[in-house]
């Protein structure tokens, strides 16, 4: 795992509480699953119709009828259930998923999320992301703070087509953690070894600093 991803994943797993029903998006969010404490009673939801995703199967035990939303072969934990796609999204839109952790391309200071389309490039589709951001009780986005050209992915306004408007509650990057409040974007944590100067330089969006600012450990 990339070092930046590891930092994000280690911080993100703290958002998962015992007893939650959680949906993890494709990409960095999927990696969070491996870090969840084994004594937690968690059910991971997969949009294609599984509540209770288990580990990857042992070699030779894979089942083409049992995959996750990323089309990877998986297993089901004891207590898991299978259902159709309408039921799966009833669960999502009806507010029964406690936490959705999604990847992002851009997040704005209002908590808008863009993560499904780059105009002019190939359009792959939004999958279940638009449903998740409007239905889950809590929406957390994980992404690298800057893109490969060093430009901030945390914008005043998203430049890419939106997945949802004012839908992100918390953003976790390799540099910092922000909350989205009625008073705007709030810096609540800085990753260990990162300076306030660096966070400010690499964040296009305006934010205020929480009086309870801590260093992520």
């Amino acid at each position: 795992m990339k070092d930046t991803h590891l930092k994000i994943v280690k911080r993100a797993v703290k958002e998962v509480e015992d007893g939650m029903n959680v949906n993890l998006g494709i990409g960095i969010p999927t990696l969070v699953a491996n870090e969840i404490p084994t004594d937690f009673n968690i059910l991971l939801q997969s949009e294609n119709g599984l509540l209770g995703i288990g580990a990857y199967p042992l070699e030779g035990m894979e089942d083409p009828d049992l995959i996750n939303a990323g089309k990877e072969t998986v297993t089901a934990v004891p207590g898991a259930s299978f259902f159709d796609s309408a039921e799966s999204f009833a669960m999502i839109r009806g507010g029964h998923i406690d936490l959705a952790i999604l990847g992002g391309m851009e997040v704005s200071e209002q908590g808008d999320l863009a993560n499904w389309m780059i105009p002019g490039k190939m359009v792959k589709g939004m999958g279940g992301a638009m449903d998740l951001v409007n239905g889950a009780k809590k929406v957390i986005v994980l992404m690298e703070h800057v893109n490969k050209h060093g430009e901030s992915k945390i914008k005043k306004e998203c430049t890419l087509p939106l997945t949802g408007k004012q839908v992100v509650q918390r953003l976790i990057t390799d540099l910092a953690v922000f909350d989205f409040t009625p008073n705007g974007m709030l810096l609540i944590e800085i990753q260990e070894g990162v300076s306030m100067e660096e966070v400010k330089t690499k964040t296009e969006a305006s934010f205020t600093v929480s009086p309870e600012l801590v260093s992520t450990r």
Partner: protein
Amino acid sequence: MQRGNYMKKSKVMNSFVEAVSDIEDGSTLIVGGFGLSGIPEFSIQALKEKGTKDLTVVSNNCGVDDWGLGLLLANRQIKKMISSYVGENKTFEQQFLSGELEVELVPQGTLAERIRAGGAGIPGFYTATGMGTPIAEGKETKDFDGKTYLLERGIVGDFALVKAWKADTLGNLVFRKTARNFNPLAAMAGKITIAEVEEIVEPGELDPDEIHLPGIYVQRLLLGTDYQKRIEKLTVVKA
């Protein structure tokens, strides 16, 4: 009044060629499956052989280049795709960028509900999904309890192609694991639903409590053998 051993006629057909023979050019098809899991392999291949053109296909994905709905795409039989995610297919990209293929991207939950609604006789419904995004452009909205929702339409297909695990001869279906996905919904929304399965038993052999989809939604039933069930992303742990 008791009906005794009243039993409906078997829906079993023996030929996939015959089952798809009346699917005409320009038809709208609703096709079950998620990725390559739970796809109606034999109906798709029969349709490829038949060569039906100008199809509008409603399906969560569009297969891969050489399998699933990707076969119909490569054969230039599809005019329009209505899907939530189409990222696994290069043919798709080429035809989309060249303007040959029309595409309507729909959020996955909205797609599932549009198909379910269509099958349930519900012409439209409201959802928050897509509000404030390009999906909302040109759509009616309505406020409920201080929040704004989009009007989305139900979808009905001329035909539905679905895959289940087991069936009885009346078309009662049982699905297996995550191969269920869009299949039961698709079956509901087809004016004529063609279901293919891995095992067909006599009525009464399935416990009515285990039936996932009542046979009322299925018009044609076929037995497939030696399913390929290709895996898109093999992820395993070494023993």
